[in-house]
């Protein structure tokens, strides 16, 4: 591809808004500020590997993983229904998935607060039906629920976009050659949809790993996740060095997970949403 001058605005944009901030993060991560000035140091990273921070990291990974798996289990069938022929109102379904995303993310999460609270909508409904009340607000269940609710479209849409592009002829051929429905799915449809699954997993896992709003609102601040930790360093403590170091560890984790994903992704890279 020939480099053209049309690239320049993008390069400038990337330099200002991506490269420079990244370098700043790296700089802050490797320096500590003492009253005498700032010096190069690995202290920030060493500090991250103290047990309490590792526990936060572990909890973040676990919650993000659980949310991603649930999103996949819920999202894949929906994507199949949307891509299949059996359901005629595909656009309506698609719209139902996309419309909530037009609303502010914070507003939607706040709405869950009023649904889940002790005298909230859910419990009023349960009482009316004569069922026992449930109190899941401010538990890890609520946090996972919030993540699944907010990130599900990011799982459904890439899988749908891949599934809808699978040549129907391939599926028919598998059937003609004697494969039953299960075999068609496990041997043909699912392997072909892997790129979508991979990009769906990445698009859910990453925001789930770094969210701090959901865990604060629905977890009642009891579930400090890595995102909360970073936010606290920058806004409350003013320890930009430590905050940057945690951010860098996160970047490494995300790069690792992307590397693992692309290993599974195989050759067919065209049909992803990226």
């Amino acid at each position, binding site marked *: 591809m020939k480099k053209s001058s049309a690239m320049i605005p993008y390069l400038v944009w990337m330099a200002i808004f991506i490269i420079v901030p990244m370098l700043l993060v790296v700089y802050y991560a490797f320096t500590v500020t003492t009253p005498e000035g700032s010096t190069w140091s690995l202290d920030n990273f060493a500090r991250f590997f103290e047990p*309490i*921070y590792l*526990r*936060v990291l572990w*909890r973040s990974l676990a919650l993000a993983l659980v949310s991603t798996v649930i999103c996949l289990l819920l999202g894949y069938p929906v994507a199949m229904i949307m891509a299949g022929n059996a359901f005629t109102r595909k656009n309506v379904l698609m719209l139902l998935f996309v419309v909530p995303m037009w609303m502010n993310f914070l507003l939607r999460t706040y709405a869950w*607060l009023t649904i889940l*609270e*002790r*005298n909230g909508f859910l419990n009023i409904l349960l009482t009316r039906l004569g069922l026992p009340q449930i*109190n899941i*607000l*401010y538990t890890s269940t609520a946090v996972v629920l919030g993540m699944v609710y907010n990130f599900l479209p990011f799982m459904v849409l890439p899988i749908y976009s891949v599934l809808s592009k699978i040549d129907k002829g391939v599926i028919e051929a598998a059937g003609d050659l004697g494969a039953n429905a299960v075999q068609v799915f496990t041997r043909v449809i699912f392997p072909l949809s892997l790129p979508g699954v991979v990009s769906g997993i990445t698009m859910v896992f990453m925001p789930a790993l770094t969210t701090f709003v959901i865990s*604060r*609102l629905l*977890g*009642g*601040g*009891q*579930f*400090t996740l890595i995102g*909360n*930790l970073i936010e*606290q*360093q*920058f*806004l*409350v*403590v*003013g*320890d930009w060095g*430590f905050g940057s170091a945690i951010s860098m560890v996160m970047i490494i984790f995300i790069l690792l997970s992307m590397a693992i994903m692309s290993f599974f992704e195989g050759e067919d890279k065209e049909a992803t949403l990226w």
Partner: protein
Amino acid sequence: MTKRTKIVLMLLSLAVISMILSGCKQDKPTLYVYNWGDYIDETIIGEFEKETGIKVVYDSYATNEDMYVKLKAGGSSYDVIFPSDYMLTRMLEEDMLEKIDLTKIPNAKYIEERFMGNEYDPNNEYSLPYMWGTVGILYNTTMVDEPVDSWDILWDPKYAKEILMLDSQRDSIAVALLKLGYSINTLDLDELEEAGELLKQQKPLVLAYVVDEGKDKMVAGEAALAVIWSGEATYGRMENPDLEYAIPKEGTNVWFDVMAIPKGAKNIEGAHKFMDFLNRPEIAFRNADYLGYAIPNWGGRALIPEEISTDRSIYPEEEDLVNAEIFVNLGQTLRDYDRIWTEVKAH
């Protein structure tokens, strides 16, 4: 480049240029005010504009830290800001504030003597108090039938999952320090560790660590007890008559939100006028009436209905505040507070 993209680009650049130019137009002097969200009776701004001919551009922030980060990052210029006491100290240490000239704020004479010359600004060279208050316990009298006068009640297993704590490291650690009888500004690591242990013990009893939602949760009857700032408590009590507010006997944190002028302010003259205006007794009164927060302005307080202005949970007298302390900036020790708080929350 096709003709169409050229036209689009031209239109875009025109739009950008006109935006920049309109920003430069200076027909009226402008005052940039940066305050907490919903922290002023906004009709006051209109009146100030009408009276002085100064146009006020009013922006708001949610936390001290948001404001600090925005000013620190540069690029924005405000003329009046409203930091809290400890944030004022931090900004002073980082040389981020202009001195104020009290001779240009004659209405400062209405500020009660006891609120002048606080530790964070001993000679009021940089700030004047705007609102003040305490931290205490808001409780629902239908769920708590014993008298609330001690922080100990927040550790009572009877109220398991009925307690709301503040999701704010300084405030929550302060509660534990007060219960233990230590200073809320302690730099002693052993005392801090002890406070951390206490908070970890308390965690199973806590329903949630909240900030702004606390008052609404209490109004809705979602919890029995909440650690809360006095101004929020006033709001809660107005919305739900079952709620009461108490300042525990072990002591409290007295806090101030102050008015100050950040370095880089372009309209220092106007900033003084605005501060003077806010200290006019009837204006201070209207602010207090609207916000429910306590004002340090005695002129304004005299106009407040007596049942409020003599309510010692809203306007505590000096003898109610013998054990009260103002937060001071902790410097590097803040990191230990952060570590202990993270330990509590990750527990």
